[in-house]
């Protein structure tokens, strides 16, 4: 999957920078180009120097816009060229949350091969929504195995992250993901709770009969709360299906 191009990202960033910030970025890129180790001190300082304003570029429709700090950090990583693989794992390991997000979002722009997958999986193990969202960009679409990708989607559902944030959901959604989401919807109804509405389009692409039947059976549950939750969920499902 493509995501934002380096040219668009750089253009959007440069358009946003005042002269002091632009000068700082030039110095940073020169320092990094002459000595890869310089990235260890320039990279963390980027947010203070170029700000964090949102740019008008996104990796896909529904993704969060890139921030100026993230873009500046991305172009620094690109400036490392092939030396990026010597530095990127340590930058991530010693990085704060914002640095880690920038690294995760940059993975499709730098020549790291498969080495970025471990960073994506690390971010997916956290409970920080911002890291999880940043990890599910164009690189993850191309590198996560099916099981990891499905679990990443489920994790977003659990955390209340809009699924529109996930890159490549259309190409990666499959029958097993639909089954897992329908089972989750049933679980929510059985607990008398509501179901996040953005799971239904994914379920409907590969409707899992057994799980949907079990969910419909909740209309006849003994407990009032379960019956009401089932009615609400099925009404929501019908409304969303009617819209599409």
């Amino acid at each position, binding site marked *: 999957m493509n995501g934002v191009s380096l040219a668009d990202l750089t253009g959007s960033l440069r358009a946003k920078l005042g002269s002091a910030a632009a000068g700082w970025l030039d110095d940073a890129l020169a320092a990094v180009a002459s000595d890869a180790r310089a990235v260890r*001190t320039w990279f963390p300082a980027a947010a203070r120097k170029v700000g964090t304003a949102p*740019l008008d570029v996104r990796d896909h429709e529904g993704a969060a816009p890139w*921030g100026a700090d993230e873009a500046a950090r991305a172009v620094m990583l690109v400036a490392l060229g092939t030396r990026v693989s010597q530095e990127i794992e340590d930058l991530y390991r*010693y990085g*704060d949350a914002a640095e880690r997000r920038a690294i995760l979002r940059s993975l499709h722009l730098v020549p790291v091969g498969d080495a970025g997958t471990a960073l994506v999986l690390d971010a997916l193990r956290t409970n920080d929504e911002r890291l999880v969202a940043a990890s599910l960009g164009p690189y993850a679409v191309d590198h996560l195995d099916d099981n990891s990708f499905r679990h990443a989607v489920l994790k977003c559902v*659990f*955390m209340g992250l*809009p699924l529109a*944030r996930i890159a490549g959901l259309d190409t990666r959604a499959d029958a097993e993901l639909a089954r897992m989401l329908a089972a989750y919807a049933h679980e929510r109804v059985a607990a008398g709770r509501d179901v996040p509405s953005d799971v239904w389009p994914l379920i409907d692409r590969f409707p899992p009969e057994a799980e949907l039947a079990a969910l419909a059976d909740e209309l006849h549950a003994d407990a009032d709360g379960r019956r009401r939750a089932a009615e609400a969920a099925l009404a929501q499902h019908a409304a969303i299906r009617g819209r599409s």
Partner: protein
Amino acid sequence: MRIFEPHAHMTSRTTDDYEAMAAAGVKVIVEPAFWLGQPRTSVGSFVDYFNSLLGWEPFRASQFGIVHHCALALNPKEANDPALRDGVLELLPRYLVKDRVVALGEVGYDAMTPEEDTVFAAQLALGIEHDLPVLVHTPHRDKLAGVRRSIDVVRESGLPPQRVLLDHNNELTVRDAKDSGCWVGFSIYPHTKMDEDRMVAILREEGTDRIVINSAVDWGRSDPLKVAKTANAMRQGGFSEDEIDKVVWRNPLEFYAQSGRIELEQRLEATETFAGNSILRGERVG
């Protein structure tokens, strides 16, 4: 009332504490690095600890509307461990350049060993190199001698005294600490160090210039509302709202703002909002 909590080890506290602190007026917290109650055995434990102070803990605080900053250092107790000393000192420059690192700290003395001398001086030099103020822990045992020796080491370092906060003072150390030109910190604890009424008496004696108070909450018996409670004691003791604001907000802010890295509002990263919605409003796990 707005409160800037200049010293709290939130890693050891629950979300109930964050909630109560926010309700009491705490808007900003600085969490200095210290020891964890039991010794660490590898430099890697410090990597994880520093990462937590820069990542997970600010995230937890933000859920209660509190802006979290940290001070980083090798603490005096573990400065005595040869397995940690050099590795952590080598690690620090990588972290001292980061956003929200607003000081070196806690540095200083525990048992006043030669190893502590070396590490203390090395970290004051890092404070100069990275243009950061320094939070100095003063020892519990042999307190007055420890404060005086700390002041000597600060003087020798060349770091201007106004960039140093000497913490954990009491009635016997306050004079030396104030005369040094450093900022003077008091930790208000339930049973040790300093209590609210004694603090009010000291403020009457010394005035409010260069004085900050903190709860220093950690894993021991401590109370995250001690700054708010001391502010109330000041109020009952006849201090004006302006004087209270100076002690619980403007003074600690002025000290840490010397770093140039204090953020009074949660910085809204582009990734945090989508279509005007904070993702933090989403449903929480569990």
